[in-house]
């Protein structure tokens, strides 16, 4: 499968000269399994440019996998050009809540007064799929989702194809009330998604010092992501969901700290950047 990052900023878009190297768009990752189907992880602002590309390609069927419905993961959907094209088939996967369907939850954002249209008014045919705890396949690619630790219903995704595994845990605080180094894997949020993955895309929003005053906000520190990667025994780590207040140089200091804490070859730990492409 091929993977491309279209947005890796957390919380709110942060364009500008100081964030240019890694990008200011919020979460969006494109996956192309061997079948050529289009799979997208999250609909942050990065999905706008991707959508324009997909229209040019004439793509008609798209699978959009949402980890959760916080605005930075959904705000690009209204500017996703394929939904205004006749004949587009959009499958949206994501977590329902205990009291509301995925469709109803998305409609909270995608409707007035927060957005001028509703999804019932777009040209695409939209199908909704509950991905709270699911396994499914798109041709030869197998997908699974599990609930993970982040405020509100949130899932991580695992994609497996041809013996390669991609794990996506973009908003994740596995160490809340836990000691990642001491706990057995069965008690670590996200472990089932990440275990043995060739590539893990993981939240790394905070420095250790910042995390002290942000416990319970649903994100990881450099120390935690290094401990999680060690525990899950992943091949490569792509640090993701960059804090909007962190400029490029700060991100590189955080990356260096994760590399040191993880204690592996530096090439195995990189910062996600808009335009990053991977072949698994």
């Amino acid at each position, binding site marked *: 499968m091929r993977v491309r990052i279209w947005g890796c900023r957390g919380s709110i878009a942060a364009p500008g000269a100081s964030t240019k190297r890694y990008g200011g768009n919020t979460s969006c990752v494109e996956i192309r399994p061997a079948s050529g189907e289009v799979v997208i992880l999250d609909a942050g602002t990065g999905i706008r440019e991707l959508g324009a590309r997909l229209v040019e390609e004439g793509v008609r069927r798209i699978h959009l996998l949402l980890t959760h419905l916080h605005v930075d993961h959904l705000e690009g959907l209204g500017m996703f050009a394929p939904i205004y094209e006749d004949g587009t088939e959009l499958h949206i996967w994501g977590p*329902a809540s*205990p009291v509301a369907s995925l469709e109803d939850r998305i409609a909270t954002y995608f409707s007035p007064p927060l957005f001028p249209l509703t999804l019932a008014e777009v040209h695409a045919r939209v199908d909704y799929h509950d991905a*709270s*705890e699911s396994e499914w396949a798109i041709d030869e690619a197998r997908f699974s989702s*599990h*609930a*993970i*630790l982040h405020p509100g219903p949130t899932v991580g995704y695992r994609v497996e194809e041809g013996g390669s595994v991609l794990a996506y845990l973009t908003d994740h605080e596995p160490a*809340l*009330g*836990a000691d990642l180094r001491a706990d*057995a*894997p*069965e*008690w*670590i*949020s*996200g*472990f*089932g998604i990440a*275990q043995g993955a060739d590539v893990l895309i993981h939240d790394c929003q905070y420095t250790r010092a910042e995390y002290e005053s942000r416990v319970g906000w649903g994100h990881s520190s450099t120390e935690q992501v290094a401990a999680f990667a060690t525990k899950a025994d992943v091949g490569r780590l792509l640090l993701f969901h960059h804090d909007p207040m962190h400029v490029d140089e700060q991100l590189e200091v955080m990356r260096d700290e994760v590399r040191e804490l993880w204690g592996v070859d530096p090439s195995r730990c990189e910062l996600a950047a808009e335009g990053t492409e991977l072949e698994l």
Partner: protein
Amino acid sequence: MSQEPVQRNLILILARQFAAQLATAVFLVDAEGTVIYYNEAAELLLGHRFIEGRGMTSGEWSAAFAPRHASGEHMPLEQLPIGVAIVEREPAHGAVTIRGADGVDRRIEATSFPLFAHTEDLVGAIAFFWEQQA
């Protein structure tokens, strides 16, 4: 003893983390009634360390703690508050006499809840319990 999964449901992970911080005794089982956690306060009342009790099936722990009514009559699993939570999928409260692994009889009160990840998705049950004062 049952085989442990790669990763527990998030509801159980959160319940365990919560219980681990509480001074109140907490007993946590999976959807089959197998012991997956009890905290230090529970260890004191059960006379049994968690490391010794983890993985006990419902049949094993209900026999080990010899639950009884006040009359001394055996209380079957389905009448225990946590048994009701698993079998009937409903909250329950009650008093029961247990014999700890330390050989001491204790009269406890317990309140139990089924744990649903989604409306029909029972992932386990949790019991909060404390010793009745004479």
